[in-house]
């Protein structure tokens, strides 16, 4: 439990948002994916942010139809 706690705090929200944005541009490395998944597992704010990113992408696609 302590280990999990420490791992999730390896990634700040600031860093998690950067990983989420970068994920749109290239496949994340295994370590990055693991860090991000751990963070999203415990952070509601960043999970919300991730859904908002996906929504914005869909909205921008609307411009083309």
């Amino acid at each position, binding site marked *: 439990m302590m280990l999990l706690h420490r791992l999730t705090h390896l990634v700040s929200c600031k860093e998690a948002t950067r990983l989420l944005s970068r994920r749109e541009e290239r496949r994340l490395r295994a370590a990055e994916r693991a860090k991000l998944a751990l963070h999203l597992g415990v952070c509601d704010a960043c999970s919300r942010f991730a859904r*908002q990113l996906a929504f914005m992408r869909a909205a921008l696609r609307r411009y083309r139809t």
Partner: protein
Amino acid sequence: MPCRWPGLRDTACLAVDADLFANELPAHRAYLLRVARLSLRDADLAEDVVQETLVAALAGRDRFSGRSSVRTWLTGILKHKIIDAIRQKQRRPIVAADFAEEADLEAFDPLFTDNGAWEAPPADWGDPENALARHEFMEVLTRCLERLPPTTARVFMMREIHELESDEICKELTITANNLWVILYRARMALRHCLEQNWFAATPRR
């Protein structure tokens, strides 16, 4: 392909189709102009590329397959005209002084505390998909895109509206992958904040 107009012979059918196509083009002009303005941030240049797009569409209408909508087809032509225009304008790399500020990730970021926590966590957007059908939402989205800094906007439009791949954009604009990521990140954060302020927080659940 069978004639869409019952009773017409092949040649007559083609003529009618061609006329309808030509008549339909002006209806898309406003949309094309909006996309061009957002992509180029130069009203005169935007007029030029839209004009070129419509001329090219008329000249090449035989190549319109009918598999996509006319608008999607026009947007495809516009994309190439916009990239050509950016190429001609961009004789020098854009990673110059005017651009350094927009690409600096280490600069102070007011969205996060020193520890990297959210200053103000994202609000609950409810079911944002409902907004997509609303004309007013698309207007807010346009205004938010207009507020992005010029270089950021150009890069963001190439990526999200014209759907170029990251490496294509880097090549066209002579910027590094890292510059590109930073610009796109800044654009997404700014756009998210703007949408939240002007739509989701302004009128929750509408």
